[in-house]
């Protein structure tokens, strides 16, 4: 199980990376954390003729907040994001979801940009991006462009990013202050790809749901934002009955595949179960405002 030969490029700047990609086209593959790509290469399932390694590109590992939007460099390691006080305070849903990405050894190398660009249909980060309506910046031969999460994920392992483009930055709107959140997932073992996973945020105003976001993973070719369920929740008063109806809406919005780990029916069923549980947990957290802020104080 050894990779086929390839040309190795380790550019220092995004421009250099784009230049190599422009020259090599479909033959080249961008290497970020490598935690998904290298196994595929070791098995010779992927045989790129050229590798463009972003690990020595400067400036892709910045993490900050601009006007209520988290800006995350494509090469920020998942482990760094998981430990980030900023993410814990402003987007605890992302922090919680990151805890489900593989194992610490994987997250030490794996990057947020890599996970998004790889677009595994059962990955956690794309579902969070979709739920929270984030966007990414990509740079290619024609310059930079922005792709909204809703337009980004096309199908299995396929995004709207062109083979000649490099994902450079991820932007995720911070969760509203006081919003509750929950990430719920069923995997065969700790750290495995999700059989189904649900991320929820819930903001309350005067006892009613002011804003609800639901993103799912593992239940189709690409991450799903459960828009119908979100509409049903928005403006309504929280109740078990409402959660049940949201779960039904989620189940109606997905087309899961079956595989040897779980049937399509199971995934659909569990997506609903997890939606209910996530809504319950998010409500508890929303009802106790300042949870995220408190957490931040203890971390920093």
């Amino acid at each position, binding site marked *: 199980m050894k990779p086929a030969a390839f040309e190795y490029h380790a550019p220092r700047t995004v421009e250099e990376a784009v230049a190599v990609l422009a020259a090599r086209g479909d033959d080249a593959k961008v290497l970020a954390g490598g935690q998904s790509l290298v196994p595929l290469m070791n098995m010779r399932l992927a045989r790129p003729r050229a590798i463009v390694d972003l690990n020595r590109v400067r400036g892709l590992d910045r993490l900050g907040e601009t006007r209520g939007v988290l800006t995350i460099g494509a090469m920020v390691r998942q482990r760094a994001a998981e430990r980030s006080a900023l993410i814990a305070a402003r987007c605890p849903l992302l922090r919680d979801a990151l805890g489900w990405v593989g194992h610490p050894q994987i997250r030490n190398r794996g990057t947020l940009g890599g996970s998004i660009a790889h677009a595994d249909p059962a990955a956690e980060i794309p579902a969070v991006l979709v739920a929270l309506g984030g966007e990414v910046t990509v740079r290619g031969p024609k310059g930079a462009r922005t792709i909204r999460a809703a337009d980004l994920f096309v199908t299995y392992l396929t995004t709207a990013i062109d083979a000649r483009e490099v994902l450079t930055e991820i932007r995720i709107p911070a969760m509203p202050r006081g919003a509750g959140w929950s990430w719920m997932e069923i995997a*065969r073992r700790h750290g495995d790809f999700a059989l189904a996973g649900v991320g929820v945020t819930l903001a309350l105003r005067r006892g009613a749901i002011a804003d609800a976001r639901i993103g799912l993973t593992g239940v189709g070719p690409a991450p799903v934002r459960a828009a119908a369920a979100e509409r049903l929740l928005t403006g309504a008063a929280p109740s078990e009955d409402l959660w049940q109806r949201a779960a039904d809406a989620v189940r109606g919005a997905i087309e899961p595949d079956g595989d040897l780990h779980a049937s399509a029916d199971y995934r659909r069923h569990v997506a609903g179960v997890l939606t209910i549980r996530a809504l319950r947990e998010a409500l508890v957290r929303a009802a106790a405002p300042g949870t995220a802020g408190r957490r931040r104080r203890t971390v920093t």
Partner: protein
Amino acid sequence: MSTRYLGARIARNEDPRLLTGRGLFVDDVQIHGLAHGAVLRSPHAHARLRRVDVRRARQAPGVLAVYTAADLGALNGPLPKLIPHPALVHHKTQYALAPQVVRHAGEAVAFAVADSRYAAEDALDLIDVEYEPLPAVAALEAAAAPGASRVHEDMPSNVCARYTQRVGDIEAAFARAPHRFAERLVLDRGTASPIETRGVVAAWDARAGRLDIWDSTQAPIPIRNGLARMFGLLQESVRVVAPDVGGGFGPKVMMFYPEEILVPFAAMRLNRPVKWIEDRREHFVATNQEREQIHDAEIAVDADGRILGIRTVFLYDAGAYNPYGLIVPIVASTTLPGPYRLPAYHCEFQAVFTNKTSVSPYRGAGRPHGVFVMERLLDRVARELGIDRAEVRRRNLIPADAFPYDVGLIYQDQAPLRYDSGSYAACLERALEMIDYADWPARQRALRAEGRYAGLGVGCYVEGTGIGPYEGARVTVEPSGRVAVATGVGTQGQGHATSFAQLAADALGVAPQHVIVHTGDTGLFGWGTGTFASRAATVAGNAVALAAKAVREKAQLVAAGILEAPPGEIELANGAAFVRGVPARSIPLGEVALAANPLRFAMPAEWDGPGLEAIRYFAPPQGTFANGVHACIIEVDPETGTLRFHKYVVVHDCGRVINPTVLEGQIHGGVAQGLGGAFWEQLVYDEQAQPLSTTFMDYLLPTAADLPPIEVDHLETPSPLNPLGVKGAGEAGVIPVPAVLAQALDDALAPLGVRITAMPLNPSRLVQVITDARRSS
């Protein structure tokens, strides 16, 4: 013999090396000029090879050779048939490289050798094979059906053996029984998957005519003997070393895997050392697997739940070849009776070829199947007759005064199945106590009131261990005072370097860390069979003890001359020989060894040779039978089908315990494999017999986060069949796990009417079972 170390919790001798990265596993062998091999494997489960063109591959950079079947000359023939059986009408083994037909995905077609493994894999890409696909058969029942496409075209069907054993009058038993219950019980395929895959290194010294092999095998001596025969060398000119072996669990005791011939063949042809290391994907298709059986079983009981008779008719999946004969199904059918009295028993199986990887024993080797059937039937009796499940078992147990107990069957070693000793009732009661069985109904009610689904499972088993034919050991006291022990039985993590050291240490009055044990190196000890069937401690352990005892007697004799006292007055302790009651009259044991090897003058005739050294063999006429009980409490989330373990206990009796720490480790690991095989691990094949789970992403070994802590207690009922009174324990952990987990799930989900009849499960399947049960109730 003053016992000090037998039964002690000695930290292991082998650990400092392994902890500091100084172990020597096969892949760690580095020799100057080492070349690397890679095997081209069939992607088809069944196909005729129309053409294998290796010309392009041979010309690739760094490639030294590419071999096909035609290149193997005299070695192009079926590999040895290991264990014949009169009932086996078709004994089929594969070739080192398939000559014409491949019969499972992963069967070896060509072997490339290059400067690096990378280049060798590049060469595989350049081999052009034209396959003519043939119909493949995957499902066991379909393969057994008349008219099924045949795995071996020279056979009239895929059934390679039918074998029946009977005890008592089964028809009469069923005819007069007031209650009869039938079940169809299924276990699917799994694999041992040690973290170290297989691997072979061969170095040929053409001038000396010497072949050195490092092989991750559980049976280095038979490998050496076979290689010598195949390559026309003296056994003495072939040395096979099983160095540190990174787990075995059964599949590494195959004589031969193709690579065990291909690697030395290439090394001799190229006159260059060659290494082949199986990668994980290869492991999932090229290393033997196990476990698939379908039992149609029926039990007849009286009104009190006492067993009158059991009948099981089952199918056993042999895979594409059956080098190991009928061992697994015979072990399954002879393990089924377990600790219970069966006045009548009928077991009948068909062994069936399928286009899947060959089957040979994997830890348990049929025992989990037998126990699953027996215990599921008893659970059915308990439920139908309204008898407490522990009580049903109690009523049927063989009592403590019934030993030796003849079951009336022939065991895998072709000897009568005769239990030597056991503690069946005591083990059960102790396990019930540890799991708080008496309190369970109340606790379960309380949990149910909270809407929680928790269940308890308990199951009993008897484990056949310690079978012959023989093992041997050489024990030598060196002038340094250290003791060298050599035995043919290799170790794959079982701690032989410590357990055997304890036995020698007790006999010779030295500390166990001064006993250096070498296993699995035919250059150091050349007689033996291998590590399998939970036999090392019993068979090799007794050989070590006997040899050490002989050395002790010799040391007494030699020391007697020096210390001027009768040999009977000489004691050995603390690394010295001394006169009983006069510790001052002593001499270090190393000096006794030195004196036993004189440079000049006459040697006393009664020494019977020089040195403090002896070789002894232990050849038990039959196996010895350990027993135990597992119990667990689990909680099920019926909405998601996920499990949480509250408690897992094992009470185990394998006779005298040599090292409780090592023994507990064996139990822990066995339970983990059992649980893995019950809920996480499954080898899935599609209808065309394509293996779908050939990575660790799809074949799921449980992790630390998935498994519960396991509480272990030991009872010690010595075996009367060997001087140490020991029995084996290697498979104890794994045997009853599917049965116990199934019962616990039934118990937890009783309000939903769930009954588990097939393993392994997973969350999706469990939710399906729950849904089906709800629908039908």
